[in-house]
Structures are given as C-alpha cells and as structure tokens.
C-alpha cells in the first residue's frame, strides 16, 4: 500500500500556465509538507500544514498556493508558471508537527516548464 502518493508523476507545461499537484497520505498523519528539489538536487521546504492549518510558509512566491481540504490531502497549485519553477516537488508527512518526528516522502512530481 502506498503511504504518500502524488499525482501526476510527470508534468510538462508551457510558461504562463496554471497547474496543480496533488498529494495524499494514508498513514493517518496530522502534518504534511511540500519540498522542492532543484536541478542540483538541493531539497528545500516550501510549506507545511498541520491538521489543515498552515504552519510553515517559507519564502516562496505567492504564485504557489497550497491547499489542504483535509488532513490526508495537501495540494499545490502554481499560477503563471515560470521556467525557474522546473524542479521535482516532493510531498511528505509526519505523525504530528514535531521536530522529533520522522518525515515520510512521496515519489515526487517532476515539473518541466517550457
């Protein structure tokens, strides 16, 4: 059974378009995250939600808007896509919003902006 799943796995789109990436976890966790991995494989936190409430919002352009309809889902919507948005986006979850909790990652979504 997949613990943290993301759709789509690959996304190719034109500059200026709006796209969404979906994430679901079936672990019963309260906290979910979005990370971005750039072309040099550097991973950085973008957002975190705990029980549908935003708790971490790093310095991310406001073209990126996370939405958590329930604690098992955290979606990422990106408006007016730019070339620099090309990256792999990972969703993750943990039992609770605790710095001592293990985070489990989804398979990633590779976004390519042309």
């Amino acid at each position, binding site marked *: 059974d997949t613990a943290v799943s993301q759709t789509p796995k690959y996304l190719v789109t034109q500059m200026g378009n709006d796209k969404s990436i979906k994430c679901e976890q079936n672990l019963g966790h309260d*906290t979910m*995250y979005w990370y971005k991995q750039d072309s*040099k*494989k*550097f*991973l*950085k*936190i973008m957002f*975190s939600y*705990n029980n549908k409430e935003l*708790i*971490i919002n*790093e310095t991310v352009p406001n073209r990126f808007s996370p939405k958590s309809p329930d604690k098992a889902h955290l979606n990422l919507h990106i408006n007016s896509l730019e070339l620099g948005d090309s990256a*792999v986006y*990972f969703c993750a979850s*943990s039992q609770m*919003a*605790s*710095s*001592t*909790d*293990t*985070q*489990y*990652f989804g*398979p*990633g979504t*590779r976004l390519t902006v042309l």
Partner: protein
Amino acid sequence: GIQVEQSPPDLILQEGANSTLRCNFSDSVNNLQWFHQNPWGQLINLFYIPSGTKQNGRLSATTVATERYSLLYISSSQTTDSGVYFCAVDSSNDYKLSFGAGTTVTVRA
C-alpha cells in the same frame, strides 16, 4: 539557519567495498534523518537518528550529537546502493528538515 555539510560529494565504489559518509551540522538537533534517493528519484527513509547508533542490514548510522556529526556506513556495497544519500536535520523545533547537499554514490559491478 542551521548549516548541514555532507562529505564526500561523490563516491565511486567497487561492489563489495565498505564506505563511510559523513554529515556535519552547525547546531544541536532534535531530528536527524538519513535518506537514500534512488536512481528513479524516490526518497527512502534509512534512519531516524538524532543520537546514538542504529543498524539495518548492511547499513548502520551513528550520530554523535555533542560533536555535531553523523556517519552512515555502507558495508558490502551492492549496485542497488547507488544513488544520492541525504542527511537532513531539524534544530529549531520548527518542524522543517534542512537538507545537506548529498553524497552521490556509484557502485560498480
């Protein structure tokens, strides 16, 4: 924010060899995790190890929190061990992991 440095950046091994990867961090940590990103891009949890020693098969990890470093040992390496190994830490109770730049391991048959 906390600095996380991993070494070496690249490692080429012959199958069957042993190796040690290092992670240095600049502040005390509440959380330290080692991940393996396989050639297909998936991030796999290896260890949650803010302190102490753990072993899982051919892999083991040790974190010396007082000296601010962690080591990941790979013994009898196999080609399936190839990929990027990341160390990630949380130092400030703000629930976010800060990642090192990774060590790219290539195991040759």
